C-alpha cells in the first residue's frame, strides 16, 4: 500500500512537474517573442532611422583651411608669405607625469614657469588625445635644444604650422598691414563659415582691405571619428564606404602691390628714429610706390601671437607705432600748399605773373595792428609769384589770400584732393580739412565761433589754422601739380593673381576729376617756381636739390605746432622736441616727364627744407636710377 501510494505520488508529481514545464515554457516563448518582436522593430522597421543615427554618430565634417595668398612688391619680391613655424605640443594621454614634464620643460626654459597653471587648465579641459599647445613659436635654438632632450619627454613634440611671415616687416608694416588672431568681433563682421579652420584674419592695411581675395575658399573633408572625437584614419577599416565627397580648399589670390621695396626700405631708413611719414606715388597712374610711417613695428608679432604685455607695449607707446601716419596722420600742410594757392590766385585774378610785392617780414590787414610774420624776419624784399614760391615768401601769400578769399581757396584746394579722402585701397584714412565759411558754420555750435575772420584766411594761405592734410593727400596733390591737373586715385594694389592659374587681373588706374586749370602759363609759372625751390641758389631747398643729374620740383613746408606769441623771439633750442615745427616737403621729378611725386612729413622735424627735402631727394634719386649704392 505504501509502495502503491508512493508510485502514484511519483506519477502525479511527474505529471505536475511536466505541466509546470509546459507552463513555464509557454511563458518563456512569449517573453522571447517580445524580444524578437523588438529586434524586428529595431532592425527592420526602424532600421533606416538608426542607420542614419549611426552615420551621424561617426561622420563629422572637418574644414580644411585655404592657404592665404601672398603679397608681392612691384618687382615680384615677397612682402607677405606663409612659413612653417614650429610649435611645442603635449599630448596628455602619452605623458605619464604631466606636472613633472612641465616642470622639466620650464627648467629648460622652453615654457614659462608662470604658465604652468594655465597649461594645466588647458590639459584638463580638452580630450586626452588632443595636443595642447605649450608654446606657439620655437626659435631655431629652442628646436635644437629640445631635439636633444626629446627622448626625455615622451608625448611632447614640436609640430609645424603655417604662419604669416613678413620678411621686411618693419619697412612695410603699415601699407601691407598684418594678420592677427580672429576675434569675436571679426566674426560678426566676416562670414564665419569662410573662416572654419582659419585662426587669423587681416587686421590692417592691404591684408585687411583685400581680405576676401587673400583668404581663398575653405574646403572640407568628411572624417570618421569615434565617440571621444578621436579621428580614425579612413583607410584603416571599411567604415568610410559611404562618405560623401570632400572639397579641396581654393587658395587665396596673390596680391601684387605697386610698392617698390627698395624705396620702401630707403624711406623707412630715412625716418629711423623719427616720427613721420613718406608717401611716393606715380602721378601718371596713382600707383603708390612707397608708403612708410614711422616709428614702425614688427607685424610678425601679430601673426605669431604675442604676450599681452608686448601688445600693451605697442598700444600704449607714446610714439604710436601702430598708427599709420601716411593715411591717418592729419598735419597742418604749411607752405606745401603754396603752389596750389598760387594757381588759385592766378586763376581768380588775385594776382598775375607780373605783380610784385615788397616783403618787409610781416603783413597786417587793413585797419589792424596784428602782424602776420614771415618766416624770414628781415623779409624777402621785392618778390613776384615765382620768387614767392621759390623762397616761400609768406607775406606775398598773405596779401593775395584776402583777394582770393577762403571759399575760392577751398574751391581750388579741393580740386587737388585736399580736404577729402583719396579713396586709397586701405582703410582708416583721414579726410584732412580745408576750411570754408560753410564748414565753419557747421563745425561750430556757438554763433560767435561760426563767423569767418579775415585773419583766418591769412593764416590758411600758409597752410596753418584749421587746415589739415595727410601725407598721402600731399603726395597726391603734388602729383596733380606734376601732371598739370590730371589726377588718379592713389592705390597700393596693382594686380590680383589667381594662385592656381597664375592669371592676373590688373587694377587699372582710376581717373578722378581733373583740376580745372587750363592756362598752361599758370602751370609753367608755378612748376618753374617749384623747380627753383630745389635747383636754384635762392631756393629754400637748394641744398637738397643741387647737383642732381635730372630736373625736379618741390616745395617745403614748416608747420607750426604751437603759435609763437607776438614780438617773441623764436628759439628752437629751448623748445621741447615735441613742440618743434613739423617739417614737410612735397616734390616731383623729372620735370619734363614726371614719374614720381613724393610727400615727406617729419613730425617736429623743425625745417621742411633742411630735414624733409633731402629725404624726398633721396627717394627720387633711388626711383629714377640715380641712387648711390653707398646709401644702401
Amino acid at each position: 500500500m505504501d509502495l502503491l501510494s508512493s508510485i502514484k505520488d511519483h506519477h502525479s508529481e511527474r505529471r505536475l512537474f511536466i505541466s509546470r514545464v509546459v507552463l513555464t515554457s509557454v511563458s518563456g516563448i512569449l517573453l522571447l517573442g517580445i524580444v524578437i518582436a523588438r529586434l524586428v522593430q529595431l532592425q527592420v522597421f526602424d532600421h533606416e532611422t538608426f542607420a542614419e543615427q549611426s552615420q551621424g554618430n561617426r561622420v563629422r565634417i572637418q574644414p580644411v583651411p585655404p592657404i592665404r595668398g601672398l603679397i608681392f612688391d612691384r618687382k615680384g619680391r615677397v612682402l607677405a608669405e606663409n612659413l612653417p613655424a614650429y610649435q611645442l605640443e603635449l599630448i596628455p594621454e602619452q605623458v605619464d607625469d604631466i606636472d613633472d614634464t612641465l616642470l622639466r620643460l620650464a627648467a629648460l626654459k622652453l615654457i614659462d614657469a608662470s604658465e604652468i597653471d594655465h597649461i594645466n587648465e588647458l590639459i584638463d579641459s580638452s580630450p586626452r588625445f588632443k595636443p595642447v599647445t605649450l608654446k606657439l613659436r620655437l626659435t631655431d635654438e629652442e628646436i635644437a635644444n629640445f631635439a636633444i632632450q626629446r627622448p626625455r619627454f615622451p608625448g611632447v613634440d614640436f609640430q609645424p604650422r603655417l604662419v604669416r611671415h613678413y620678411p621686411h616687416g618693419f619697412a612695410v608694416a603699415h601699407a601691407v598691414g598684418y594678420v592677427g588672431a580672429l576675434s569675436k568681433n571679426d566674426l560678426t563682421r566676416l562670414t564665419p563659415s569662410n573662416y572654419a579652420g582659419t585662426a587669423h584674419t587681416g587686421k590692417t592695411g592691404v591684408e585687411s582691405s583685400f581680405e576676401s581675395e587673400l583668404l581663398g575658399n575653405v574646403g572640407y573633408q568628411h572624417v570618421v571619428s569615434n565617440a571621444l572625437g578621436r579621428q580614425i584614419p579612413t583607410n584603416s577599416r571599411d567604415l568610410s564606404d559611404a562618405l560623401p565627397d570632400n572639397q579641396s580648399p581654393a587658395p587665396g589670390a596673390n596680391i601684387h602691390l605697386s610698392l617698390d621695396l627698395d624705396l620702401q626700405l630707403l624711406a623707412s631708413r630715412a625716418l629711423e628714429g623719427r616720427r613721420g611719414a613718406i608717401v611716393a606715388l606715380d602721378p601718371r597712374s596713382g600707383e603708390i610706390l612707397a608708403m612708410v610711417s614711422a616709428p614702425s613695428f614688427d607685424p610678425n608679432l601679430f601673426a605669431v601671437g604675442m604676450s599681452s604685455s608686448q601688445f600693451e607695449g605697442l598700444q600704449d607707446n607714446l610714439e604710436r607705432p601702430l598708427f599709420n601716419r601716411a593715411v591717418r596722420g592729419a598735419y597742418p600742410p604749411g607752405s606745401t600748399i603754396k603752389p596750389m594757392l598760387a594757381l588759385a590766385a592766378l586763376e581768380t585774378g588775385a594776382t598775375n605773373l607780373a605783380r610784385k610785392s615788397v616783403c618787409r617780414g610781416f603783413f597786417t590787414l587793413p585797419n589792424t595792428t596784428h602782424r602776420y610774420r614771415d618766416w624770414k624776419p628781415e623779409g624777402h624784399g621785392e618778390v613776384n609769384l615765382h620768387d614767392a614760391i621759390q623762397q616761400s615768401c609768406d607775406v606775398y601769400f598773405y596779401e593775395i589770400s584776402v583777394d582770393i578769399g577762403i571759399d575760392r581757396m577751398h574751391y581750388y584746394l579741393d580740386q587737388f584732393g585736399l580736404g577729402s579722402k583719396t579713396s586709397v585701397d586701405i582703410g582708416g584714412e583721414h579726410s584732412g580739412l580745408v576750411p570754408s565759411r560753410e564748414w565753419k558754420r557747421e563745425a561750430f555750435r556757438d554763433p560767435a565761433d561760426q563767423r569767418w575772420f579775415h585773419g583766418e584766411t591769412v593764416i590758411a594761405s600758409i597752410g596753418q589754422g584749421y587746415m589739415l592734410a595727410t601725407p598721402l593727400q600731399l603726395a597726391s596733390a603734388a602729383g596733380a601739380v606734376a601732371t598739370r591737373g590730371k589726377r588718379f586715385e592713389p592705390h597700393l594694389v596693382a594686380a590680383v593673381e589667381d594662385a592656381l592659374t597664375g592669371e592676373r587681373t590688373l587694377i587699372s588706374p582710376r581717373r578722378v576729376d581733373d583740376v580745372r586749370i587750363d592756362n598752361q602759363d599758370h602751370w609753367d609759372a608755378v612748376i618753374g617756381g617749384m623747380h627753383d625751390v630745389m635747383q636754384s641758389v635762392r631756393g629754400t631747398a637748394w641744398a637738397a636739390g643741387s647737383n642732381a643729374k635730372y630736373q625736379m620740383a618741390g616745395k617745403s613746408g614748416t608747420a607750426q605746432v604751437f603759435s609763437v606769441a607776438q614780438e617773441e623771439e623764436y628759439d628752437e633750442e629751448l623748445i621741447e622736441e615735441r613742440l618743434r615745427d613739423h617739417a614737410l616737403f612735397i616734390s616731383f621729378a623729372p620735370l619734363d616727364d614726371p614719374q614720381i611725386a613724393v610727400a615727406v612729413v617729419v613730425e617736429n622735424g623743425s625745417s621742411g627744407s633742411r630735414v624733409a627735402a633731402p629725404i624726398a631727394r633721396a627717394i627720387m634719386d633711388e626711383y629714377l636710377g640715380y641712387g648711390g649704392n653707398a646709401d644702401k
Partner: protein
Amino acid sequence: MRTNDAQRLTTGKAAPLGDFARLMRRLNIDGPLLGGILLICAFGLVVLYSAVGESMSQWLSQINRLGVALVAMFVVAQMPPDFLRRWTPWAYLGGLVLLILVLTTGEVGQGARRWLDLGIRFQPSEVMKLAVPMMLAWYLHDRTIPPRAAELLVLAVMIAVPTVLIARQPDLGTALLIAASGVIVIILAGLPIRLMVGLAVAAVPGALLLWNYMQDYQKQRVLTLIDPDSDPLGAGYNIIQSKIAIGSGGLFGKGWTNGSQAHLEYLPERDTDFIFAVMGEELGLLGVLSLIALYVFVIGRGLYIAMQAPDTYSRLLAGSISLTFFVYVFVNTAMVTGLIPVVGVPLPLVSFGGTSMVTLMAGFGILMSIQSHRKLLPR
C-alpha cells in the same frame, strides 16, 4: 559480453552510434547538450573577437576560460545526482558563510564588495547561483509536492537569506537572478496558480518597497528605461547607443568587425553586457535570431532532461538550471534592446569574463549528470 554490447542489442539502434557516442556515454556527457553549448560558444567567440577590437590576447584568454569552464562541466558531470544531493546542504551553508565573509572582509571592486580571496579569487555569489536551486530541490525531494504553506515559508527563507546578503554587496542583478532560480524551483514544484497570481498582485507594493531600497544609480537605470532621451549623455547613453547599434545593423548587419558603433567606442561595455548589440550591428537580425535559436535548443534540451529525470531532486534542479539560463538570456537581450532597465547581466557563454562562465558550465554538468546517471538509478 560487455554492458554496452548488451544495450546495443536490446535497443536495436547500436550500429549508427559508433565509438564516439559510446565514449560520450561513458564520460557521462550528453551529446546534444554539449553540441548546442559548443555552437553557442563558437558563435560567441566569433562575435567576441570583433567586440574586443580584434585583440588576440583577450580573445585567447576567453578561450582559456572556456576551456577551464568545460573542464568544470566535465568534472561535475561525473558526480551522480545522489552524491550532489547529499552534499547540497553543506554547499548551501558553506555558500552562506562565504557570503558573510565577503560582506565583512571581501575585496572592494567598482564600489561593491563581491570578491573573496581564498587562495583563488572568486565571487561566492556564483556558488549560490547553483546552491540555492540545489537546496530548494533537496528540501522538496523527500516531501510531497506541491509544497504546503509551512514548507513554502521555509523555501522563502532559503531564498531570501542569500538574496539579501548578495543585494547588500550590493549586486542587485545577481541577487535577483538567484532569487529567480529559487522561485523557479517553487513554480516547478507546483506552486498553486492562485498563489502565483496573488504574489504577482502583491509584487506591486513589493516593487514600491524595493524602490525605496534601491541605490540612486539603480533608480536612475529604471528611470532611464522609461525615457532614455532624458539623459542622452548620462545614464541613457548606453541604451540609446545600443539601440542605434542594433537598429543600424538591419537584416544582414554591417559585416563582421565592421560595426562602427562598436569599433568607434560609441557602444559602452561592448565586450561584456552589451555584446548582443555588437552582434545585432555586425550580423543583423539573422545573426541574432540564429543565436536565439541555439539558446532555445539548449534550454529545450535542458527541460527535456528535467522531464526525463527520475526523482524530484533531479527534476527540479534540472528544470531550474535550464529556466534560469533562459532568464539570463531574456534579461540580457531585453536589457540591450531597451525593454527592461540596465541590470548587469552578461549574455551567457558569449560575454567576455570568466566567473559566471564556470558556474554556467557547472550547471550544464549537473544536467549531464542527471541525464547520464538516469538509467543507473532504481525506479
